[in-house]
């Protein structure tokens, strides 16, 4: 490969992209291979596949891929804006700081949305007190880009009975079934439900010059040392760099987007690895820092021209944060599953995907079976123990010895409603290690979200028991106090009064500022958003390329 290109900060590149994750990595590849000059500013380091380890203490406990925990990021949380937010022990907003972003350490469960997700508001009517809305685009408009993700990013799977229509088959067969999948099938059959193959952003066989999955078992929370997980690090960044038009600039902590006298974005101001302030000039800025960081940066970029933050004339920047609520039922079985090996999930159930008015509340969800707490030993001990057994001593030890290989969990993931009260703002006191105002999260689930989680918890318990568990228990439904799914905070829409970007991801207020990440999503889907974030990024790239080639940026 030729020497990687480097740009001077004073040199005006075509695009400065903030963030190299699920959306930023795709936009970097699409724009650079189309011939545009691109600088990607990534706040994390440039780890490669060989840098990823199975070190549970470092990754799970010490937040290696998060760049440390709460003392570094200073994030605060409260459940109501009348309260003073406090800094919890674990950061409430969790994402990977590394080239490739959270596509590096996510579990790689990879569901498309369905047509109803885009127009549920029209189908069901308004829900008072919420910002429940239709998307400005349809499933049909996004479908070609889902297919592009399938083939370019690399998706393994097989169609299920309720799937949305697809224009091309999966490029690879599904990952083989695991014991948790076999047991979920058993339970589903008894209950008249339909277990189907889990689609994965993981290669079940070699694809696009990348190796297939070796079933090491460290997908959830960890980076893939085989490059088989379809992160943008594995699938997109190498193509972007090979174009000769794209510089990935790691360890670059963005503090502000500057605008000029015409209200156009002119440069991105960031701290280099030595903490020295730099400013990258660009014709246009693409903000893909995730649904929490993008909002923080826009709010931090307030100026005399934009007193409430950049691109925020609607006041919708940071609002409508959606996490997806979760439900967990755990079962212990007679024989060993050894479910810690291989990918997390091999079978899912989508019978409860759609809203059913007979339930008495809005919402839908998906169910999967996985080792979850039995994926690794420390995680098991911290969260997966039989609640009827003491936490130490002989009984504790005996229970761990018996259960670790025999346990699995059935997990439900739900919709979340968009609410004003759930949002990202700048904490007035707390700062992160770079001196930036810390992310302050305010979040309290809509009662329908919790009702849906309870409904799925009941179904999950039935499934665990029908699958033949000798012992089962539920985690209980608790209010959401943070999460990895960071959705809705810069939503797309046709009306500048109630959205931040238009249907092409161009901000309503700043003509050469594009925002594309989980924050673009108008509704939350049913719990696995990354596939949609990636499809949106491919689609945004097409619109941005078209605009740029007619000098309309």
């Amino acid at each position: 490969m030729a020497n990687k290109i480097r740009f001077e900060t004073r040199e005006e590149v075509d695009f400065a992209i903030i963030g190299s994750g699920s959306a930023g990595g795709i936009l970097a590849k699409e724009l650079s291979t189309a011939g545009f000059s691109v600088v990607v500013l990534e706040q994390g380091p440039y780890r490669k596949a060989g840098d990823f380890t199975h070190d549970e203490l470092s990754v799970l406990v010490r937040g290696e891929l998060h760049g440390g925990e709460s003392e570094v990021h200073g994030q605060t949380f409260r459940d109501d804006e009348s309260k003073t937010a406090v800094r919890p022990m674990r950061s409430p907003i969790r994402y990977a700081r590394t080239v490739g972003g959270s596509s590096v350490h996510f579990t790689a469960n990879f569901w498309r949305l369905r047509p109803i997700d885009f127009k549920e508001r029209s189908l069901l009517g308004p829900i008072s007190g919420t910002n429940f809305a239709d998307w400005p685009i349809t499933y049909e408009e996004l479908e070609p880009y889902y297919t592009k993700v399938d083939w370019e990013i690399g998706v393994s799977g097989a169609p299920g009975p309720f799937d949305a229509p697809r224009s091309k088959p999966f490029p690879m067969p599904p990952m083989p079934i695991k014991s948790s999948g076999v047991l979920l099938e058993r339970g589903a059959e008894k209950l008249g439900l339909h277990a189907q193959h889990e689609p994965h952003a993981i290669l079940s066989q070699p694809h696009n010059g990348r190796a297939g999955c070796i079933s090491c078992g460290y997908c959830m929370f960890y980076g893939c040392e085989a490059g088989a997980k379809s992160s943008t690090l594995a699938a997109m960044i190498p193509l972007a760099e090979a174009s000769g038009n794209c510089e990935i600039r790691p360890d670059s902590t963005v503090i502000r987007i500057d605008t000029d006298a015409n209200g156009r974005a002119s440069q991105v101001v960031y701290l280099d690895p030595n903490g020295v302030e730099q400013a990258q000039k660009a014709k246009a800025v693409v903000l893909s820092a995730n649904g929490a960081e993008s909002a923080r940066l826009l709010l931090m970029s307030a100026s005399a021209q934009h007193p409430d933050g950049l691109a925020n004339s609607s006041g919708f920047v940071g609002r409508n944060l959606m996490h997806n609520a979760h439900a967990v039922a755990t079962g212990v079985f007679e024989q060993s599953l050894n479910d810690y090996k291989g990918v997390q999930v091999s079978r899912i159930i989508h019978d409860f995907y759609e809203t059913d008015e007979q339930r008495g509340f809005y919402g839908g969800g998906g169910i999967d079976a996985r080792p979850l707490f039995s994926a690794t030993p420390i995680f098991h001990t911290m969260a997966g123990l039989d609640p009827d057994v003491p936490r130490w001593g002989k009984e504790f030890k005996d229970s761990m010895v018996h259960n670790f290989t025999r346990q699995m969990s059935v997990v439900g993931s739900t919709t979340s409603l968009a609410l004003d009260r759930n949002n990202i703002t700048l904490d007035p006191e707390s700062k992160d290690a770079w001196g930036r105002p810390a992310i302050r999260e305010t979040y309290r689930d809509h009662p329908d979200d919790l009702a849906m989680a309870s409904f799925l918890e009941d179904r999950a318990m039935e499934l665990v028991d029908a699958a033949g568990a000798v012992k089962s228990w539920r985690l209980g439904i608790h209010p959401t106090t943070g999460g990895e799914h960071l959705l809705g905070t810069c939503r797309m829409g046709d009306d500048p009064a109630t959205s931040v970007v238009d249907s092409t991801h161009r901000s309503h207020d700043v003509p050469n500022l594009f925002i594309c990440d989980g924050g673009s999503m108008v509704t939350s889907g049913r719990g696995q958003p990354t596939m949609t974030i990636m499809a949106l990024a491919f689609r945004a790239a097409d619109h941005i390329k078209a605009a740029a080639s007619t000098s309309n940026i």
Partner: protein
Amino acid sequence: MDQKNLSRRRFLQSSGSLAGTAYLRLLGPAVIAIAESACTAKHTASPFKVLGADEANDFAAIAARLIPTTDTPGATEAGVIYFFDSAFAAEMSGQLEAARTGLAAFNAALDESHPDARRLSNLSEDDQDAFLKTQESEQFFGLAWAMTIFGFFSMSKYGGNKDNIGWDLIGFEGDHGAWQYPFGYYDAQVHGEANHGE
């Protein structure tokens, strides 16, 4: 020179000089064995980087009750105390002071309930467990619990989980590079029929 014997002798000497022969009696044979093996491995006179002998004794005793040695190995055999020491010397150095304060309060409570015991390890196992139960809601207990778990199950490079004792105990086959299907009993029934890989 016989490095092994030299280190071992140095450990015993240094321990003796710290607390006299009574200290050695207080250490269970298992702790001495681990201390010796760690000395051997590290070729160093002192087995601990930051912990004093009494502190190490107390932490080791607590860990030994949290994950006891039964017919299978426990925290003692896994060398969890060396995780405590390594962590307090490095990543958790910021918590060492709090841990020491917590341990002092723990021992003060012990003095109150068992005036003659002096150390947890002097009590019978049942009495140790009964006393630990009274400490469960203390922050110090939580710290000791978490560190025992980390020391039992984290990679052995952190000082504990010696020879992957913790992983072996629960049937976790460790930091393996790759696995072949089937993994367990239930998927074996399917893969057996279906020529695995689907």
